[in-house]
């Protein structure tokens, strides 16, 4: 298990390095390939009405004349250890993790992103609780009462929920609940530490709006999963034991149906913490999504690079956590992981044969897993 965690950590770091290379290439390599020289690039950093000396100073300060590999190295070192920018006349220190200085505000990017992160995190986590509980509950009930009025209504609502964009539902919610009925007036960001009550009150509408989209999706997923699991033989066994129907549904049915949903949940949450763009813009929340939009509108390269790296970080970390969680949730995966740690080669044969699980358990591909399975003389453990 520990070997597995270490392997996943190394994998995660490797992925992040790849992301940084791609991000760096987009902003530095591609413009250069397109014919832009370092002087023109530096001009963009100076801002409006650049003077020649200011541009040259910026070029030297950001070391833009150096080979790209060197620049990339500086970029990486800056993230890990911080950078000293030497413009010739003055030295400015950018503390790690350094993503450079924003074009307009001339402030370091990282503290700005850290200021925006709690907003997005509050939004995403609160909404996640709502949609997970709501979506799964609705999904289970519709699966159990398949074909009933409740099922049809909730699945119709789910279809609507998936289809309606946040800037539509959000605006309607604002109009009705905030302006017309004054239930949640004056929606704006209040930090949790300043006033927890106001924080929650102001986030209710964004939470619900964001949760509706996801709850709809999760309700459909749960319903499909439950319909499948409740037809499994082990459900019949559970009934044959004389268990109460509720125990059968929750402990046996839902337990099995929830596993794939948990996987998707982790990924969705990771993605959202990197910026819930639509919701933040609709409700004017100063989160990472808002930050991203502004950065793109202003063509603020350091900000864009920073936010891309941060979002990628959350997704990759969420992916890693989901992997580990899967091992906790599904004992069959756990077995293969333990086997991985005992022998050098990973035995993926006992991983359930769904594309999802194979993907999340580090078995590189279904093909290689199949090949390994075929080559192993005794797929079943020799303990029998």
């Amino acid at each position: 298990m520990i070997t597995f965690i270490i392997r996943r950590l190394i994998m995660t770091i490797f992925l992040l390095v790849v992301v940084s290379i791609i991000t760096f290439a987009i902003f530095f390599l591609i413009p250069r390939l397109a014919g832009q020289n370092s002087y023109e690039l530096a001009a963009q950093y100076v801002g409006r009405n650049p003077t020649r000396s200011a541009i040259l100073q910026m070029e030297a300060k950001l070391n833009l004349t150096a080979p790209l590999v060197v620049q990339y190295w500086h970029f990486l070192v800056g993230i890990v250890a911080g950078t000293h920018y030497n413009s010739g006349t003055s030295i400015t220190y950018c503390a790690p993790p350094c993503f450079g200085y924003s074009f307009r505000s001339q402030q370091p990017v990282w503290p700005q992103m850290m200021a925006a992160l709690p907003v997005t995190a509050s939004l995403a986590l609160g909404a996640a609780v709502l949609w997970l509980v709501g979506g799964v509950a609705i999904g289970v009930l519709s699966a159990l009462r398949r074909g009933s009025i409740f099922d049809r209504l909730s699945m119709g609502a789910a279809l609507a929920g998936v289809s309606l964009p946040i800037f539509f539902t959000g605006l309607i919610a604002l109009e009705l609940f905030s302006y017309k009925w004054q239930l949640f007036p004056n929606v704006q960001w209040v930090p949790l530490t300043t006033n927890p009550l106001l924080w929650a009150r102001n986030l209710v509408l964004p939470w619900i709006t964001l949760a509706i989209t996801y709850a709809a999706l999760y309700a459909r997923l749960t319903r499909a999963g439950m319909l499948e699991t409740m037809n499994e033989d082990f459900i019949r066994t559970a009934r044959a034991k004389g268990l109460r129907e509720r125990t059968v549904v929750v402990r046996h049915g839902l337990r099995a149906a929830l596993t794939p949903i948990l996987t998707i949940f982790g990924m969705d949450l990771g993605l959202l913490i990197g910026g819930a763009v639509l919701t933040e813009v609709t409700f004017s929340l100063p989160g990472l999504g808002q930050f991203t939009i502004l950065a793109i509108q202003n063509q603020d390269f350091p900000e864009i690079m920073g936010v891309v790296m941060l979002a990628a970080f959350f997704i990759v970390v969420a992916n890693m956590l989901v992997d580990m969680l899967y091992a906790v949730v599904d004992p069959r995966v756990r077995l293969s992981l333990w086997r991985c740690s005992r022998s050098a080669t990973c035995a993926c044969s006992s991983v359930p044969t769904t594309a999802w699980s194979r993907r999340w358990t580090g078995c590189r591909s279904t093909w290689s897993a199949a090949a390994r399975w075929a080559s192993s003389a005794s797929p079943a453990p020799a303990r029998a």
Partner: protein
Amino acid sequence: MGLHRGSGTDITGQIRLDGEDLVSATPERVRQLRGLKMAMIFQDPLTALHPYYTVGTQIGEAYRVHNHVSKQVARKRAIDLLGRVGIPQPSVRVDDFPHQFSGGMRQRAMIAMALSCDPELLIADEPTTALDVTVQAQILDLIVDLQSEFGSAVIIITHDLGVVAEVADDVLVMYAGREAEKGSADDVFRRPGHPYAWGLLGSMPRLDAARVDRLRPIRGTPPSLINVPSGCPFHPRCSYPSRVGGDRCTTEVPVPREIGPGHQVACHLTLSSQREIWAELAKAAAPAEAAPADTAPADTADTAETAETAPAQTAARTAAQSATPGEPGQDVTEVEAP
């Protein structure tokens, strides 16, 4: 056991367990009886066990529902049961997951689960189909041993006549959901009176008979249970309606008729013609007399599997010992109406 899919099924008649009718009982009462007084072993032990819980948890759960005890007590019970069904190192294996068990061990675990509350009736639905022959024999031995140990009545549902001959005291041959023949194992194997039973026995390969190139299957294919043939459900595949005369076979459902002590046959053939035909068939299959391959009708190109996959199953009812001594085997009949 009330495990059928809710809607679309209609159960009529009587199912009595220890004198208590289960068809008219409330679902809650039936649930209480499930696992406690009647337990079931399923066909495929891999899919019938929950993949996310340990074997011990699953066995203990069955025990805990009906006996309100702590997890520790249930665990001890699970270890004890696993040992009884022949799992080595039960105190270690109790924490294994089903996928860490072999097929035979899984079926043993299923049996342990079924026996956790000392049920009075154990229903085994093709308990050995998913297993290979050696393990099959072990599991059957285990069921027979445990039957005498726990004193449960056992119903084995199977299409495997070898299993029937091995373990059954009483045999009920069913075809299309109806009784075809009922009697002691000896009666059914030595003096069968129903054409379907003849067909089943005739399609079995025999060690003592001369080798024939083809097994002799029952003509045709099993009927759809949604659209059961009129009259005797077996008549489209039967070779003997002509000996009955008239159209009784296609119009009249045969009623089970006593042809010997405890031996019932549901067929319109007269007793004498039944005996006559069976004598001929037995002679034809007798040792040393090579039965020519071309005696098999040309239109039966199917293999013996036709007979084996027939939905009508041979239900062997082993009711030698009942749960409480001095009480005859429970009267249990399963009535299905498609």
